[in-house]
């Protein structure tokens, strides 16, 4: 395996820096929210990870289509990397959301459209890995994986649209009467800075992690090929 190219080394370094800066902005620079207190700060990472989780989801579906069209294994490795990294970040999103919800709405979970769609999306990702694990042949694994990312990628947004219709039936979460209970708070300009920087930081981190994961995938592929050659 080739050593890390210079760009990747720089990107690794940059990722650490932006993560540190984003953390500082979120924990120190941004003002404390008046109604919920400190817990609101998780919002910055919550949105940052949600953004890359969704981005990865879309990238995976596109990579799937490209694999089916070109049958180039590189797109398959790209797709696996996207799904794996996104699953991770989306998991963080969901947990941070629950941590935020607990003091704000007095409940760990609520079946509102975004949270529910997030849970279903995460389950689609997990199902994706279970599907791949059950297939021996790498070519079939790639084909089926691509088909599933496509199916998942299109059904998740539709799920979101449908769940939004349910809001009129299900009661709003019981909680305090403050604005926080309805989930809203207006952002000051400092908060906006932390918010947008978090989006930027996580995008950088996402690209960095994907690159590493793709390199890992290339190495996996190489080892599999070697195994085949040696056993012959």
């Amino acid at each position: 395996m080739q050593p890390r190219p210079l760009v990747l080394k720089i990107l690794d370094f940059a990722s650490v820096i932006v993560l540190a800066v984003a953390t500082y902005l979120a924990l120190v620079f941004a003002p404390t929210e008046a109604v919920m207190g400190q817990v609101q700060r998780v919002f910055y990472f919550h949105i940052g990870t949600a953004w890359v989780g969704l981005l990865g989801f879309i990238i995976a579906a596109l990579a799937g289509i490209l694999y089916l069209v070109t049958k180039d294994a590189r797109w398959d490795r790209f797709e696996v990397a996207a799904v794996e990294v996104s699953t991770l970040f989306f998991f963080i999103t969901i947990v941070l959301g629950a941590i935020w919800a607990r003091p704000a709405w007095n409940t760990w979970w609520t079946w509102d459209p975004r949270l529910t769609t997030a849970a279903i999306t995460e389950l689609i990702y997990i199902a994706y890995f279970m599907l791949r694990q059950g297939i021996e042949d790498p070519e079939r694994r790639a084909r089926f994986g691509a088909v599933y990312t496509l199916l998942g990628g299109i059904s998740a947004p539709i799920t979101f649209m449908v769940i939004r219709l349910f809001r009129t039936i299900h009661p709003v979460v019981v909680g305090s009467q403050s604005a926080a209970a309805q989930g809203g708070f207006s952002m000051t300009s400092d908060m906006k800075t932390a918010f947008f920087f978090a989006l930027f930081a996580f995008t950088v981190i996402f690209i960095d992690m994907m690159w590493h994961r793709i390199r890992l995938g290339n190495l996996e592929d190489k080892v599999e090929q070697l195994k085949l050659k040696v056993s012959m």
Partner: protein
Amino acid sequence: MTNIKSIKAEGGLTEEAHPSFFKATLAIIQKDLSAEFRSFELISAMLVFSLLVIIIFNFALELDVKVRQSVTSGVLWTTFAFAGTLGLNRSMSVEKDRGCMDGLLLAPVDRSVIYFGKAISNLIFMLVVEAVVLPVYSLLYNVNLFRLDLIGVILLGSIGYAAVGTLLSTMSAQTRTREVLLPILLFPVVMPVLLASVKASNGLLTGAEFSEVLTPLNLLIVYDVIFIAIAFMVFDHVVEE
């Protein structure tokens, strides 16, 4: 493999050697239906299972008269979803076991014919089961489910379910874990169908305004169209040998 066209040119084979899309699909449906109506093993299993699920729901949820109204559509669709999984699994594993799948793949027809044939057979099995479950539920819980609009929603929902389910069962049948994997793959992806169908059915049963029913209904139709199209385009990649 000899060229079919050349054989035709020699007058060796009739038009049946290269059947039209429609005829080929019909042939597959006929095969599945006649096999099923001889033994009834698939439909009877789905039926008994559905009735058991409804009984379990009776104890799991206190279905008193007030609650029943709001919960009926959820109970019905959960039942259909689970029974549907049974049917899809069995339908596909039977193909593999009897070696029919290989035969179908060798046939001189477009691969999508296999998809449409299987999907429609699976749909028909689901509809037969639903046709029995609806009256039984109506009797057991004194709810009138014999409405054309409700049947329409159930039909649209079943179409979406069968369309995606057939594609995914074809995939899961080729994995190591086989039947176990189908619900895991299917349910997250078919969620819009279940949600929209429940919402629309619920709206109809509780007498909501038509606009409240129309929106989920539209989404359901959109889903059906999109996913039938996707399955049609992608099925080739799922049955390559």
